[in-house]
């Protein structure tokens, strides 16, 4: 950020905020500043996710460090006149959630997201000002590739994409493969539903990834890098392209970087909507223009990867940690976190939680701290039931796990996994059988179809869960469900199938009573599985307005104007629209 300006307005341009405003906030503010003659004095900077997506669009005024939320067009004049011209904070717009202002930032520790929100992602100067590309310079000019690799090993950094494999060790293996060509691949095909940290990093701090890829190239002996990015991330793609152009212009990519004989270029390849491409070998096949079907490892990509050349694949968040490790030292990084999981982890908090968005906390932070201190607890003060970590590959953690220090190994031991860092919080209204069904639906949709257990096994698992939710399950189904889950896990070809039954196994382990209730008592305890319920009309409240009857998609509601309506349960499909539409609370379920 330039000190040339008196004040900097940081506009959150994360997709959520970007989308929440019905107008181009940046342009609008710029026009307004010009109107007031402040455009030489005050700079508007687009930065990334402030972790307050639910109250966007957000803006921070620096150096005052005042944060405004849910801004509309008409608020802009107020902010300019009151705050920028007269120095009075517009209290009504100030975001003052206790949890985020005071709690969040204390518990949080930003390494991967260190620059997100604090620099203009489209200005390389901003990044350089924050010691950007220092790490690359240091590596190229003062360390041998082996020394750098050793530092990464020493830092204890583990892959943030899901597997948690030690990054330095991976680099070391790839560096030892002998080949005329090697590749550095950045996996930015983030696919876990509910996780978007990679997108935020690329949108907010693309240079950190570029710098890290170059360092990796130096270490493993590669002069080509490829970013494999989801095509559904237009903003991230745009900023990455700008950053690549700028890095080239500054000689930070290309030939003879920092006057050394190290050359490095980066290309972009697009994903096309296949979750399985998060798996390394599938990703490589996709980059080669093939169907994204995985192949057996070994051979690992570090030996035979893209176009059969040794290839090192890391994800965005992993790379984003690298420059910080080089700059601040491996010991510094290793001092953060737990014994076997060093550093921090970015999580995407979502679901029935008050503060939705990205957080970054040291490994070892407890779930309780994340959910209550940072996340602000459960929406509407309801009761916490479970949190799903690791997306469709992970499992759910419950009340008893709340004081679990989060790291790779503790999550695995608790029957879940780190995954890419999605955290979906569920409350008492969520049915865990339905939740497992939701995840299996995702897996069925995303299975590549190459191996039998994943192609047919997941389909059968989903069918069984559907049967349970529809009220036709039997106690025998639970045994079959468990057996098939274990077999699919044990026999599938790649990580997708090897983890897809986790949501079932972990919900069965933690909420067996709910499964039991579905097949024995024929009840859904949370009330979410509507096939067990019936909708009724309350005699007292119904005024006979016909709204419910008109909106019923299957014409199951009968009645005349100003007379009590009745639902025909034979026809009713339990969609719940009548209940949503009734303005008099006259419809209830039992």
């Amino acid at each position, binding site marked *: 950020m330039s000190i040339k300006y008196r004040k900097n307005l940081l506009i959150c341009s994360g997709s959520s905020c970007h989308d929440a405003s019905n107008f181009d906030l940046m342009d609008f503010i710029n026009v307004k500043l010009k109107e007031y003659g402040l455009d030489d004095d005050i700079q508007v900077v687009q930065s990334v996710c402030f972790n307050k997506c639910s109250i966007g669009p957000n803006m921070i005024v620096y150096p005052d460090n005042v944060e405004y939320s849910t801004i509309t067009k008409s608020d802009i004049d107020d902010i300019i006149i009151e705050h920028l011209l007269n120095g009075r904070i517009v209290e009504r717009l100030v975001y003052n959630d206790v949890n985020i202002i005071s709690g969040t930032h204390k518990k949080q520790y930003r390494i991967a997201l260190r620059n997100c929100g604090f620099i203009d992602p489209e200005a390389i100067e901003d990044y350089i000002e924050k010691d950007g590309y220092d790490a690359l310079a240091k590596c190229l000019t003062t360390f041998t590739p082996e020394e750098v690799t050793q530092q990464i090993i020493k830092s204890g950094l583990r892959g943030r994409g899901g597997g948690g494999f030690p990054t330095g060790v991976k680099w070391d293996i790839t560096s030892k493969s002998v080949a005329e060509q090697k590749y550095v691949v950045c996996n930015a095909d983030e696919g876990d539903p509910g996780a978007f940290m990679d997108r935020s990093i690329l949108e907010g701090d693309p240079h950190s990834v570029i710098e890290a890829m170059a360092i990796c190239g130096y270490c493993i002996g590669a002069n080509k890098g490829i970013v494999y990015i989801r095509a559904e991330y237009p903003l991230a793609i745009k900023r990455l392209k700008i950053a690549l152009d700028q890095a080239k212009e500054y000689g930070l990519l290309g030939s003879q970087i920092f006057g050394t004989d190290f050359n490095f270029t980066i290309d972009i390849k697009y994903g096309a909507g*296949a979750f399985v491409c998060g798996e390394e070998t599938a990703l490589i096949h996709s980059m080669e223009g093939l*169907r994204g*079907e995985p*192949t*057996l490892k*070994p051979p690992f990509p570090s030996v035979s990867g893209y176009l059969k050349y040794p290839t090192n694949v890391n994800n965005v968040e992993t790379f984003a940690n690298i420059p910080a490790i080089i700059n601040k030292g491996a010991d510094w990084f290793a001092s953060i976190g737990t014994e076997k999981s060093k550093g921090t982890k970015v999580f995407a908090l979502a679901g029935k939680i008050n503060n939705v968005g990205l957080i970054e906390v040291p490994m070892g932070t407890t779930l309780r701290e994340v959910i209550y201190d940072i996340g602000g607890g459960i929406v509407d003060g309801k009761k916490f039931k479970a949190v799903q970590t690791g997306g469709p590959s992970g499992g759910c953690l419950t009340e008893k796990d709340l004081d679990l220090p989060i790291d790779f190994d503790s999550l695995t031991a608790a029957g879940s996994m780190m995954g890419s860092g999605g955290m979906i919080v569920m409350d008492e209204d969520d049915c865990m059988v339905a939740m497992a069904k939701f995840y299996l639906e995702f897996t*069925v*949709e*995303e*299975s*590549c*179809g*190459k*191996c*039998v*257990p994943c*192609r*047919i*096994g*997941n*389909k*059968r698992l989903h*069918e069984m869960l559907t049967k349970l939710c529809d009220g036709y399950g039997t106690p025998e189904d639970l045994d*079959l469900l468990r*057996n*098939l889950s274990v*077999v699919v*896990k*044990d*026999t*599938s*070809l790649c990580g997708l199938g*090897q983890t897809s039954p986790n949501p079932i196994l972990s919900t069965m382990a933690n909420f067996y009573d709910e499964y039991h209730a579905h097949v024995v008592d024929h009840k859904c305890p949370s009330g979410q599985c509507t096939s067990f319920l019936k909708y009724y009309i309350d005699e007292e409240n119904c005024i006979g307005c016909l709204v419910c009857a008109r909106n019923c998609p299957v014409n199951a509601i009968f009645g005349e104007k100003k007379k009590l309506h009745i639902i025909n349960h034979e026809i009713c499909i339990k969609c719940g629209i009548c209940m949503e539409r009734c303005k008099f609370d006259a419809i209830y379920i039992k």
Partner: protein
Amino acid sequence: MDTINIKIDNKNFQVAEGTTILEAAKSVGVNIPTLCYMHLHHLNTTHKPTGCRMCVVEVAGRKNLVPACATECLPGMEIKNQSIRVLNSRKTVLELILSDHPTDCLICAKNGDCDLQSMAQEMGIRHLHYQGEQSHYIKDRSPAIKRDMDKCIGCGRCLTMCNDVQTVGALSAINRGFMSVVAPAFQMNLEESVCTYCGQCVAVCPTAALTEIDHTKTVIRHLADPSKTVIVQTAPAVRVALGEEFGYDPGTIVTGKMTAALKDLGFDYVFDTDFAADLTIMEEATELLDRLTRHLNGDTTVKLPLLTSCCPGWVSFFEHHFPDMKDIPSTARSPQQMFGSIAKTYLADKLGIKRKDMIVVSIMPCLAKKYECSRDEFATDGNPDVDFVLSTRELARLIKQAGIDFKSLEHADFDKPMGESSGAAVIFGSTGGVIEAAVRTAYEVFTNQKLHKVDFEQLRGMDWIRESTIDFNGTPIKIGIAHGLGNARKLLEEIREGKSLYHAIEIMACPGGCIGGGGQPLLHGDSNILLARQKAIYAEDKGKMIRKSHENPSVKKLYEEFLGSPMSKKAHELLHTQYFDKSNPMKITKD
């Protein structure tokens, strides 16, 4: 070879280093079940997508079960092939496959010859615990191949054959997950695709997802029709493979029993495609010499190398993929079609029957022949020269259906005149055979000298691409041989780039030539069978009195009585053909 020590089910074994668990287990007599795996050793082709998961084993220290077919044995590895965990997993996975597969085994085309059925039997599957939605697809019938994708288990063997070995590219895996299936582009019918009907996909399909179009019923109907004279021709590769269907060892020659069976089935005349093969050599060798002489005399317009044209899969291949080169192959028709056109003219005249009352049936090792006989240019007034083609497998079924006890049949001879043949014709059945037969004749015609050593060992074998220079009495003639369309593609690309130095090239679509045709008894992954068939072919040649095509008396007589000389006007009309551009270019409009 270095060996390593491993343990399988707590027993110690020494196995070769660098082998997979599956290979190692096999080498010490331990059976691990496989379904998608396919290893055609002599064809240098391995298919191990690790998709079926039937070969999973437990390896100490590994979290998940591993596929034995693609996991390398390491020193000290402790493998469990028979633990409850392994057996339960395999059984459950097999049940999953069966849960998405019709259970109409009793009336299925592959009943008794289906890998999935055998596996279910071996595993003792008696109940399907997991049931649910099944995949349903529209059945596709082309002139040669039937696709019933409801029966596809997604092993992908056909994809390896179609795309990697043959480089035809008619099939691909499409969609994903439960909806994934093997199909031509846009799920079009095979007939609209670039399929050459080589049938290699059918030959490796473990189930009845891909089968031949069955013509046995129609043939039976014609045999029963007294107004028709039904004649049959049998291709050389059939006689060395048919026995396998009746329990004979691979490579057993059953020519005499086959002929007897055909007579028992009621065919009016049993002839030999070999007769027509000799005829083919007469035409093709003459064409070669014509081009060669012009070339040696400095004619730069002459097209060389000459490519053989007896293989209909290969003909379709260049019509689809190399239409710009359609004037290079010999214009000589294939033996099957030469037989048909001579039978329905010369023979019909001799027998005094009308064309329409004669039915010509071919017994072929090939599925593309079914398509070839349906091509418009091989019909007169809508009446095809060859009416029906039965594959070796179909003939075996026909014999079994008729209740003929094949093993106890007495040998019978082919009928005359179209049953007489030379050893040169027999070797058409193996890769390298056609060109060897052509050389035997071309040499004598070109040099005017007698060829004393007729066995050209240098042209034989199973290597994908072979080349040799034959000394035509001072003139070196360079010969190229390729089998498998992928190898044909390589040679064609060389020709297109002007890099080819050959005078003549033999191309066979199927690996091994006709002995490995898409209509032959299934190999079930054992390529030793191909070698045995090949050996039998050359043995049959050795045993023949006449070993050069131009010495076949019946063929000589045919030229004297009917055709005149090779490449005569009549020969052109009846024995040659033309090729078409089938690349199906899109119509491009102005706007």
